[in-house]
């Protein structure tokens, strides 16, 4: 187990290194970008940049410098806002984004697992058809459409929820639902097909032949087995919740990390784009790692070499 974890951590760092290298090279290849000569910037920012990135130094020196910064969690200064660092953007935005993301994943799992199970058990009946119809809508309707729709109906028309901001808990509800939409639908469908598949397995017939009740079969034999594929996609789900938050935060005007990212894009704040991308990647890789470890723990068949 320890050997496995060590190996996974090593590959995690390798992946991150590649991501950092790629982002760095991409940002360097921008004509008129942050690391080229033709810029029209305030003197002070210019100086800060030259100083920070040793822009007169060769490329590989700059890169190692950047990586050195990353190792002490320093993402460098903003390219657009004088005296601001990318770290500040993240510390400002991340608490709200992570709170929203966490609420969404809890909301998703609490709804998707029971809904998917009901759908599978009632396969072909009206419950299944209804749930699958909703799930198809959730998968096909883009999150920004869901968000604007929710906002129009519940904030403008009905006035149940605040339009902007998160001054109260109420403010989180619509963004959370809008953000969860896709994952909720996806996990519901996955849970359904996974449970259906498990229920068709020979060992379920064995359990039936033992005289176990249908409820007992689902609870004792099917559910845990059906959860395995769901666990494997939890990592990517967290990813989609995080990236989905760009638009959600924009629509609901929430001061999270996503909105910083989107404004950085609009402002062409290259260092911020680069820093936030790397930050996202780190979180995602870490999440996938945690999920993988969890996965190994719940499935005894996985052999660790």
């Amino acid at each position, binding site marked *: 187990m320890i050997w496995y974890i060590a190996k996974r951590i090593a590959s995690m760092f390798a992946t991150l290194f590649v991501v950092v290298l790629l982002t760095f090279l991409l940002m360097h290849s921008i004509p008129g970008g942050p690391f080229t000569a033709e810029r029209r910037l305030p003197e002070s920012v210019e100086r800060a940049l030259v100083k920070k990135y040793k822009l007169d130094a060769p490329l590989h020196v700059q890169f190692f410098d950047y990586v050195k910064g990353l190792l002490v969690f320093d993402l460098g200064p903003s390219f657009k806002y004088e005296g601001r660092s990318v770290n500040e953007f993240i510390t400002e935005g991340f608490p709200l984004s992570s709170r929203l993301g966490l609420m969404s994943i809890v909301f998703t799992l609490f709804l998707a697992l029971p809904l998917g199970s009901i759908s599978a058990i009632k396969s072909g009946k009206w419950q299944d058809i209804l749930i699958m119809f909703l799930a198809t809508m959730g998968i096909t309707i883009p999150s920004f459409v869901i968000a604007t729709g929710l906002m129009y109906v519940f904030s403008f028309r009905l006035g149940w929820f605040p339009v902007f901001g998160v001054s109260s808990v109420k403010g989180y509800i619509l963004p959370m639902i809008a953000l969860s939409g896709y994952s909720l639908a996806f996990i519901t469908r996955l849970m359904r097909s996974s449970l259906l598949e498990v229920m068709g397995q020979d060992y379920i017939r*064995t359990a039936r032949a033992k*005289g176990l009740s249908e409820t007992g079969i689902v609870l004792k034999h099917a559910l845990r087995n059906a959860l395995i594929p769901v666990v494997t996609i939890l990592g990517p789900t967290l990813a989609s919740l995080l990236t989905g938050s760009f638009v959600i935060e924009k629509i609901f005007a929430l001061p999270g990390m996503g909105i910083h990212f989107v404004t950085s894009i609009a402002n062409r704040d290259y260092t911020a784009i680069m820093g936030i991308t790397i930050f996202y990647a780190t979180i995602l890789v870490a999440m996938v790692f945690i999920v993988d470890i969890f996965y190994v723990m719940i499935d005894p068949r996985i052999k660790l070499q």
Partner: protein
Amino acid sequence: MAGLLEVKNLTTSFFTQNGEVKAVRDISFSLDQGEVLGIVGESGSGKSVTFLSILGLLADSGRVKGGQALFNGKDLIGAGKSELRKIRGNDISMIFQDPMSSLNPLKLIGAQVAESLEIHTNLGRAEIRRKAIMMLERVRIPEAAKRYNSYPHEFSGGMRQRVMIAMSLICNPSLVIADEPTTALDVTIQDQILKLLRELRRDMQSAIVFISHDLSVIAGMCQRVIVMYGGMIMEEASIEELFETPAHPYTMGLLRSIPVIDQDKDSMLEPIPGSPPDMLAPPAGCPFVVRCVHARSICRESVPPYNTVSETHRSRCWLWSSDAPVSGNIFKERGVARA
């Protein structure tokens, strides 16, 4: 003899996209307490479906269309779900074909063996565990107490089938249905499992239904044999009668396709020509008619009745009918010759 199970006119179909698959058609037979009955037939002949119907274990698309299955005088076909559950695993248990997929991969071996006891008895945890370990020992699992805490993937195929057997016997059922228990195993393992089953049969009082497509396996296990084809019983006989005086062309074909060790080099194994009937639209008459070298025109038109050959021997072949002509009739000519 006290009848344990009596099946009358059982008919089961599967309803698929392409139509109704008539898997079991009008089957009747009976089984006594402690008896070992073999069911033989090729895949798709309705062997397993017959018993899955009786136990209410059919897939969702399957439905019993008619008939009765009296177990100790009580009809299982009409029985409620909870009544049936009390019988399953307790009075009637099943050993399935593929031990690789028939065990839950995420549950401990011991827990799976003990589960039937948890369902059907009120014994305490420790007692259940003790009994499960004892049962594992009885099916010759080495270090049973330690292996109790293993997962199925840590076991070989033969070991898993032993676990399946332990699972089916733990509640002391009066009937065990072994559905091709050795088909998925290597030949040497097959032998070990058959040996184990024979030993267990001696010690236990259970009746056994042994389903197989392999007549030679059945020969070593059973007292009586039912031959199935196309969802129907073709022939029913004691094991000696079946091998010595097979009374159905299909059985004769089956016997000719079994390899015998001391066989002449010249005599070849004879496969039965043709392929099994399409159960979506089975022939109006005898299901074997299109492959039968002795077929008569009546065989095409109507289903043959059960014809008595001897007290313990019946055959569903028109040639045994009292109206059937003697000349050119392999069965009657044989009888004449012997007389």
